[in-house]
């Protein structure tokens, strides 16, 4: 159970550390489900507040997957109460690169297109896809965070890739 003060999550240093370490991942995870960044940041806050409330009973070694579990449930709760269907949408920021301005605009539009393709992927597969490609996590790590098997992660990823591939094929 509780070891030293340092390990105990009810301590402000430890708790802050857990936030700094996984806060962005949790936000991205929630975002992959709802597509709304402001909402994702709100729910991230709620997730950590819940963690704080349960800090005494939380094993620091499993806090990572625990956070994902809390976050996932919070998203479900939010939309259940809202009575609005969850609808993945997109943000409009894109990277600046070396293209001249008129072509930057076109690239933004293409990225918006690809982001739209994401909304056609079922939620579980989309989440895995984004954790893999945008957060650059390995399948084993994704499996650990989501508490599923690596095979399950691979299946979801495969599904996402098939959908993207087919969407591209149709357009071309």
């Amino acid at each position, binding site marked *: 159970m509780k070891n030293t003060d340092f390990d105990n999550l009810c301590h*402000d240093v430890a708790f802050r550390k857990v*936030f700094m370490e996984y806060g962005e991942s949790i936000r991205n995870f929630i975002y992959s489900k709802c597509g709304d*960044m402001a909402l994702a940041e*709100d729910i991230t806050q709620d997730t950590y507040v819940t963690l704080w409330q349960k800090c005494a009973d939380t094993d620091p070694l499993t806090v990572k997957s625990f956070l994902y579990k809390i976050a996932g449930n919070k998203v479900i709760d939010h939309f259940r109460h809202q009575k609005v269907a969850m609808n993945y949408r997109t943000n*409009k920021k894109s990277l600046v690169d070396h293209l001249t301005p008129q072509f930057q605009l076109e690239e*933004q539009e*293409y990225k918006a*297109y690809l982001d739209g393709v994401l909304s056609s992927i079922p939620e579980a597969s989309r989440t895995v896809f984004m954790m893999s490609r945008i957060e650059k996590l390995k399948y084993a790590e994704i499996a650990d965070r989501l508490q599923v098997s690596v095979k399950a992660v691979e299946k979801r990823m*495969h599904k996402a*890739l098939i959908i993207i591939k087919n969407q591209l094929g149709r357009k071309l």
Partner: protein
Amino acid sequence: MKQNNTHETLLARWIEGDLTPKEAEQLAEMEGLQDLRDALDVYDDMELPAYDLNKAWDRLAAKTIYAEKTIKTKHKSLFPTMMRIAAAIALIVGIGLGYSTYFRPKQFFTSAGQTAQVTLPDGSAVTLNAGSGLDYTLWQWKRNKVVHLTGEAFFKVTKGQKFTVKTPQGQTAVLGTQFDVLDRGKTFQVKCFEGKVWVTNQVTEKIITKGQGVKFSGQVAKDLDVTSHKPGWMAGESKFFENSLQEVFDEMQRQFTLEIQSDGVDMSRRFTGVFSNQNLEKALATVCGAMHLTYEIKNDQKLVKISSAK
């Protein structure tokens, strides 16, 4: 190794390079994989907005560490909702546009007597000679800097950029140079005016540097000397080195917007020389004089008849 259901994880393992040789073989048959790989590159570039962790922490700490009680509040003010609606509308419009602008070919053509200037996404400048065409899609550009050319164009590539020009008979790859590519009929020719260029006609490869050129006629590759800073046609002249009369008169037709008919002239004879693109009479005099031919200009300079000199 479990055999069941591995096909349900196939693509997931494919991108990690985790396939059995048999699976790799199967995938070689699958269509659309290269496009998928390219789309994945774009997804990899997508970054989500930065999360101001420090600011978020301040907010969180106030609710946890520094709070006597933890109070959960959720406000949804009208303003953010309006912004989300606006974003959704912008997205719907954007998706429609986004695909088509990325995949729609950008095409540039010149007709007879015309030259055109095109600027590529990286700032490289392309000047098209008459009767030529350049096309590319932003998709191909992002993928591997490829443009397609028919006819002839002079390229001034922004320094440090890699570039491939694909023409029916070959490819030219460069690194920050100035070069001219010509692909007409059976002739594929590249002249390098600055820097270094790699050229292939799918059979032979060659690297040429400033002052060098190569001309492929079928399988035969001939070295060329390039003595000027820019191709002749950009200075109002058409230059030829052992080109067939057919090629010479074809170019003349392109430069002057007219039709040339010949009667009993051996069009495979070779011509080496220069004609002016500014003056039809002078051009004809130059070529015909050198080749013992006579010419007749008709129909208000729209038709020229060539025949052998008596």
